């Protein structure tokens, strides 16, 4: 018997705007000036908010924060390509930008980074799942959610995000495998920003691309320039449309780069070559989109200044509101079960016998309120 080939697969790469904003006209999506304007605004907002969060963390007004700078095109392009009915499961890194686009108030989103659970009380109407910290674990939740929606005769697409490191987790495999077998309308989005904290992409897997992992689960995988917001939008739109049309789940690998640290707790200088960072700075998503908008006659210096001022004012206003937020400490006992158990009633009384302040310091009379870093 001759040897026959039983499987063959390919992965395409998509880029529409190159690093300098040069356009491949044959691939250009037909987007109105209004949409293009919003794309730019959302990316600028994400960057300004991101920088503000780092500044707040450095001055003890926010806890650990995971910045998105350099990757803004991914949450912005993806969320804008999704329809309003679609569900989005972002990771902590895309969360702020995605939530903003979905209309979740900035002052609310700040709260979780400021150390209060109230910040993840996201009304279901926004169709955004609250981010979680354990890597890749939200992916099977997205699959289960998609199943539940289908069983109830609704047909939204579910966009589920993860990073390059997450592809090493068992939950990543579980999610793709279950979604494939159950033929669910899910789009798995990998933000490949080259590092899982300090570990480079090449040490995560010998796989040439992350997109090709899709093929093993019987679905399509594409690799896309994640710093090109037009390509991000196009890829997600196509994948979501296919999922909606019953063509099953798929994987998109966005190739990008995290300009800052993993979180405010690490220093990338320890594990990254500055030359590499400079290479990626040249491929900045906002820079190249700016050039595109300029060619379109949308962008001008005055326009960008206006966008920045509006965004900054909104962010500053939100921070004031966030910092004034009071979360009832008793809620830590209230939400363990639907109804508080007798045991927790007793423990709750004991827990609040000694008065403490929201900042974590012990509020003895005359003692200065201590801010945790």
């Amino acid at each position: 018997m001759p040897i026959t080939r039983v499987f063959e697969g390919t992965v395409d790469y998509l880029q529409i705007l190159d690093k300098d904003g040069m356009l491949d006209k044959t691939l250009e999506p037909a987007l109105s000036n209004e949409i293009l304007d919003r794309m730019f605004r959302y990316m600028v907002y994400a960057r300004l908010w991101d920088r503000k969060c780092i500044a707040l963390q450095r001055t003890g007004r926010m806890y650990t924060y995971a910045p998105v700078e350099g990757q803004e095109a991914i949450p912005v392009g993806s969320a804008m390509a999704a329809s309003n009915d679609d569900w989005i499961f972002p990771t902590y890194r895309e969360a702020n930008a995605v939530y903003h686009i979905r209309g979740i108030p900035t002052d609310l989103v700040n709260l979780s980074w400021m150390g209060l659970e109230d910040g993840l009380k996201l009304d279901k109407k926004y169709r955004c799942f609250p981010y979680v910290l354990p890597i890749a674990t939200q992916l099977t939740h997205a699959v289960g959610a998609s199943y539940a929606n289908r069983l109830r005769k609704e047909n939204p697409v579910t966009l589920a995000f993860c990073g390059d490191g997450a592809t090493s987790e068992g939950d990543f495999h579980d999610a793709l495998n279950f979604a494939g077998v159950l033929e669910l309308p899910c789009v798995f989005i990998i933000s490949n920003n080259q590092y899982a904290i300090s570990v480079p992409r090449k040490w995560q897997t010998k796989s040439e691309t992350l997109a090709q992992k899709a093929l093993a689960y019987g679905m399509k995988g594409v690799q896309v320039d994640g710093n090109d917001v037009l390509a991000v939008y196009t890829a997600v739109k196509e994948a979501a449309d296919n999922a909606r049309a019953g063509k099953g789940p798929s994987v998109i690998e966005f190739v990008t780069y995290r300009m800052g640290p993993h979180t405010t707790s690490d220093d990338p200088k320890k594990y990254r070559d500055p030359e590499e960072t400079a290479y990626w700075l040249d491929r900045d998503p906002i820079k190249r989109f700016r050039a595109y908008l300029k060619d379109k006659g949308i962008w001008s210096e005055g326009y960008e200044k206006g966008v920045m001022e509006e965004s900054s004012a909104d962010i500053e206003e939100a921070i004031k509101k966030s910092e004034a937020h009071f979360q009832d400490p008793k809620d830590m006992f209230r939400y363990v079960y639907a109804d508080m158990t007798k045991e927790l009633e007793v423990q709750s009384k004991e827990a609040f016998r000694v008065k403490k302040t929201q900042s974590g310091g012990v509020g003895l009379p005359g003692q200065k309120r201590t801010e945790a870093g």
Partner: protein
Amino acid sequence: MKMNMVDAINRCLNQEMERDKDVIILGEDVGVDGGVFRVTEGLYDKYGRARVIDTPLSESGIIGCAIGMAAFGLRPVAEIQFQGFDYTGYHQIVQHASRMRNRTRGEYTVPMVLRLPYSGMIKALEHHSESLETIYIHIPGLKVVCPSSPYDAKGLLASAIEDPDPVIYFEPKSLYRAFKEDVPEERYTIPIGKANVLKEGDDLTLISWGAMTSVSKEAISDAQMEGISVEHVDLRTLSPCDWDTVIKSVKKTGRAVIVQESVKTLGFASEIIARINEGALLSLEAPVKRVTGWDITIPYPKLEQYYFPDRQRVLDAIKETIAF
């Protein structure tokens, strides 16, 4: 109607699926095959693949998906074939099922049931005889129940499925077909969080749950022959535990023995003793004794009988506590 525990659980699942279209079943071999213990027999034929899902072979996948399903309005009942295989899905329980409500301030909740066949004494292979209920009781946000009879199995499962919180439902494998008893055909519930005084007595309180309740019953009847009147408290729910019933009983009898199948160190008996100390120390006439498995890996089937608490060990503990 006379039913064994498998019949009772099967009947309950059927009734709940009939009553509520959001109740679905997922797990390995739960559909066409009816489950490795045949607990879900017939449900695939009746409700179809969309509601009785034969999943890929992955505990973390089953539990992770069930969490998503529950958070989005379904009432999934997930089966893990043996408790000893659930560790690869345990992270999903601890990191998400148990705390989704807290993390999202009640916006997203996880009303799922995780069915875990546990306990040994069925001469099974390695990993098939474990009873590590403590690792679930230890997690805030989970409810943990463990029936000891067909009647309890049916009523507790109905409560677990309609409960708004995630419930870990331990099924004692050795009792699956051990005996039949009268179980109402119609739907009923047994409240979660309430213990059951199986037998009243004056001299000593014996506390047990799940498979150990049967072993304990035998020892209690032996003790009765020797004139010792034992009050038997079956916990039914391990979390949140009904401490009032335990304390009330120990205050009455002044003596207690706890029978636990799991390893000795940091088993649930440790917590029960601490609670008795807090609530009934001055009523005690003797130290509280526990009969437990040993702090060893459960032996392979040929010698497993050395591990599990048995009728004689329980009787000895009762007599020693009385004689103290």
